[in-house]
Every structure is written in structure tokens, then in C-alpha cells.
């Protein structure tokens, strides 16, 4: 698994890798305005990660991107989402506290990027959770496969 795939696959991966990640973050960022959102964008970013993992093998895994860090980030994403939901508990759970408040995300222009109250923040939280969660699943699978192969 550490060897990776052929030259063609690796070259194509080098070209598309960054594009996929940028598109994924775009989908997350514009989740409250256009189709997509945290889940879809997170999955797209994670698919770039999967592509790199399949093309380059575990050699492409940098030390910083280990699964413990990814899993911690996943918990942070989930807790951020829940925390935003809890923030509205003065009125109702999931109440949108920032909407119509006149603050950063509470503008009156419904088409602006900084609109929608807590929705963009929730998209970021979900996106973080999905991309790190799927990435750690992939890493666990690859590491498991490598262990079996060496044994």
C-alpha cells in the first residue's frame, strides 16, 4: 500500500488534488446560499484525501496528519455544531440567534455571503466533522491493510 499507483494516476492526482479541495471548501462556504453544504463539501474534501491516499499510498501521509489529530478535530466539529444548537436554547433548541441581529452574519441581504445567522457556522462545523471523520476512517483502513500485509 505504501507504494501507491502508476505514474499516470499520480500525475493526474497532482493536478486535480488542489482543485478538488478548493471546490470542497467552496461548497462548504456557500452552503447556505447554493446547493451543497457542510456534509457535501466535507465529503468532497475527504474525497481529495482519498484520492491522494490511493494514488500515493501511505507514503503520502505526512506525520502531522495522523488520525489522533483528525479524530480530535472531528469531535471539535461535532461539539461546535451542538454548541451552536445549544446557544439558541433561550428560545428553542437550534434557534437561530444570529439571524436578523445586525451582527456579522445577521445582515438583511439574503444573498450575501455573510448572511444566514448561525447557518454558515454550522456548515463549517459539519464540514470539519465530515472531512476529518472520513479521512480518519480511510487512514484506519489503510493502516489496517498494511498491518495485515506485513504480518
Amino acid at each position, binding site marked *: 500500500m505504501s507504494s501507491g499507483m502508476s505514474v499516470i494516476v499520480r500525475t493526474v492526482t497532482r493536478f486535480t488534488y488542489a482543485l478538488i479541495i478548493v471546490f470542497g471548501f467552496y461548497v462548504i462556504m456557500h452552503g447556505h446560499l447554493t446547493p451543497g453544504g457542510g456534509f457535501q463539501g466535507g465529503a468532497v474534501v475527504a474525497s481529495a484525501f482519498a484520492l491522494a491516499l490511493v494514488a500515493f499510498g501511505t507514503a503520502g501521509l505526512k506525520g502531522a496528519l495522523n488520525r489522533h489529530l483528525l479524530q480530535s478535530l472531528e469531535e471539535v466539529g461535532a461539539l461546535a455544531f451542538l454548541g451552536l444548537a445549544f446557544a439558541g436554547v433561550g428560545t428553542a433548541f437550534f434557534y437561530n440567534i444570529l439571524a436578523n441581529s445586525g451582527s456579522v452574519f445577521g445582515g438583511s441581504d439574503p444573498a450575501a455571503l455573510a448572511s444566514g445567522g448561525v447557518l454558515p457556522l454550522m456548515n463549517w462545523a459539519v464540514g470539519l466533522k465530515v472531512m476529518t471523520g*472520513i479521512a480518519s476512517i480511510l487512514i484506519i483502513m489503510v493502516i489496517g491493510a498494511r498491518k495485515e500485509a506485513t504480518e
Partner: protein
Amino acid sequence: MIAETILQIVTLTLIICGAVLAVTLRDLLSSVIALAAASLLVSLEFYLLQAPDVAIAEAGIGAALTTAIYIIALRRTRRKEQQ
């Protein structure tokens, strides 16, 4: 309208072809690729049915991630299915 109908019929036919290939192919890597192609076509069909939200999710999860996971899993086993 007519063009869209034809496009839908073609897409649906290709989805069925991909699904049948994914089940029948003995070469497991080809089978996975066929499944990915079917997923991508399902994603296109979702887009045609005006569900772009679902289409993005299907393209990301169905076509890219599951394929990657299948390929990783395939490394642990043989490429050809035994009779």
C-alpha cells in the same frame, strides 16, 4: 423537453448497465469501477431531477469515497473472484 427525456432514458439505461456489470464482472477492480460509474450516473440523474444538493453528495460519497474504500479493501484480497 424531448432532449431531456432522451437524456434521462440514456442515463437510466446506463445506470442499469453499470449496476449489472458491477454484479456480474469477475474482476473485482473492474466491478468497483463499474459501480463508481453507476454512482456518477446516478448523480447526473439526481441533477436532471433538479436535486443538485443530493447530486453533490452522491458524487462525493458514491463515486469517490466508496470507490477509494473498495480499492483499499481490494488490496487485502485477490483481484479475481473465485468460482
